[in-house]
């Protein structure tokens, strides 16, 4: 994922004065192409009105009509938004196939050094703060620095892009069913309503060991080591891989941790160090919260 400070290009599909109303199917096809490419598009309708700039450079697309069309004027203008200068580009897309329109948008995006969408699959935890009690279980559980705390020692998702794609494991250690993964397959992790059954469910309890009948990291280390020693003797790599996958199936089934994550776990030493660091961060946050509570 690119830097959060790099804004994406804002596309405006203009159908106001001086621009034609696009034929419905064509408009759907152009929009679907741009949205699939990860772009955001403001559709003005016949009014041609556009909400205020937000700091992103703007590309106005449309089909020119008449002499006073915005598309017959300059291709780029500087305007000021909240003290920042944003560029406004105009492109007439008359007769262009949706694929060509996407290319045009992508070219302007490169030219304006805007954020390029689609480089990262957005998979990360989202916290429901109506449910979260700041118990820090997630902070102490995650090995990948996804969680952190803010200045008031409240839990936050600090590094969403460090989350392992398709791994919902931390949502299962949250005792309050407060962690969502909007792109997960089933509820309540996908954001569906949380019912009492979910709260009571054994795998939702704080006790991480209840998940797997032992400390999860001990178990992972154990499997990792066993697999490593067994597979170092294996000549047939394909067979070894199959075997390793079979070994990990139960663990995966119980925890919902994807194969790729288990297969790419760091070394035993690294796991130990990271688990220790995560635990320390969680303990420090809990202590700071306790102190703040006592002061207050």
């Amino acid at each position, binding site marked *: 994922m690119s830097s959060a400070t790099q804004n994406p290009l804002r596309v405006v599909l203009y159908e106001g004065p001086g621009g034609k109303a696009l034929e419905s199917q064509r408009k759907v096809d152009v929009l679907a192409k741009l949205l699939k490419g990860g772009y955001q598009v403001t559709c003005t309708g016949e009014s041609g009105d556009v909400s205020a700039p937000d700091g992103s450079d703007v590309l106005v697309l449309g089909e020119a009509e008449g002499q006073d069309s915005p598309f017959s004027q300059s291709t780029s203008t500087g305007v000021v938004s909240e003290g920042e200068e944003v560029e406004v580009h105009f492109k007439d897309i008359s007769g262009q196939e949706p694929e060509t329109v996407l290319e045009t948008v992508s070219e302007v995006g490169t030219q304006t050094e805007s954020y390029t969408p689609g480089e990262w699959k957005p998979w990360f935890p989202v916290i429901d703060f109506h449910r979260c009690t700041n118990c820090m279980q997630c902070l102490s559980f995650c090995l990948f620095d996804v969680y952190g705390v803010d200045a008031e020692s409240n839990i936050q998702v600090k590094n969403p892009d460090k989350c392992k794609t398709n791994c919902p494991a931390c949502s299962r250690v949250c005792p309050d069913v407060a962690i969502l993964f909007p*792109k997960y397959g089933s509820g309540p992790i996908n954001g569906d309503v949380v019912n009492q059954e979910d709260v009571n469910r054994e795998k939702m309890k704080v006790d991480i060991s209840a998940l797997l009948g032992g400390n999860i990291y001990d178990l992972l280390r154990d499997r990792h080591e066993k697999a490593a020693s067994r597979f170092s003797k294996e000549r047939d790599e394909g067979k070894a891989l199959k075997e390793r996958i079979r070994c990990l199936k139960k663990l995966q089934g119980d925890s919902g941790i994807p194969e790729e994550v288990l297969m790419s776990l760091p070394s035993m030493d690294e796991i130990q160090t990271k688990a220790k660091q995560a635990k320390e961060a969680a303990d420090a946050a809990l202590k700071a919260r306790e102190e703040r509570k006592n002061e207050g």
Partner: protein
Amino acid sequence: MTQPRILYCHCAYAQVVHPQVKADVLAGLVESEKAFEAVGDLCEMSARKDPALQRLVSGDQPLKIAACFPRAVKWLFDAAEAKLPEGQVEILNMREDAAEEIVPKLISDELNPQVFESDEDSNSETESKEAEV
């Protein structure tokens, strides 16, 4: 009454919303000839704290959103420091509901404000916590 703004999420990077539902909702919006905002993937924008999310929640016009589960959408905006205005938002769930059900609600000027289960839960939890003290 002020006309609600419309936001449509295409959920570009996952298959969690059925493609036909997305296509039909988008087609319905286009047919309506209304102005609307469409985004590739709200999740991705939330992770980047995209400033567009703040633009989308600013102003006093109510907002109608076609995306997925309301609880997910609410906290995605919250994570991006763009809180959804209370009582001014209606979220339509393309993961659960059919396009024929969603489109008329999305383009209607009438707002059916979202009530979050978690609001109720947390209210009753707070009440019971207070009662314990």
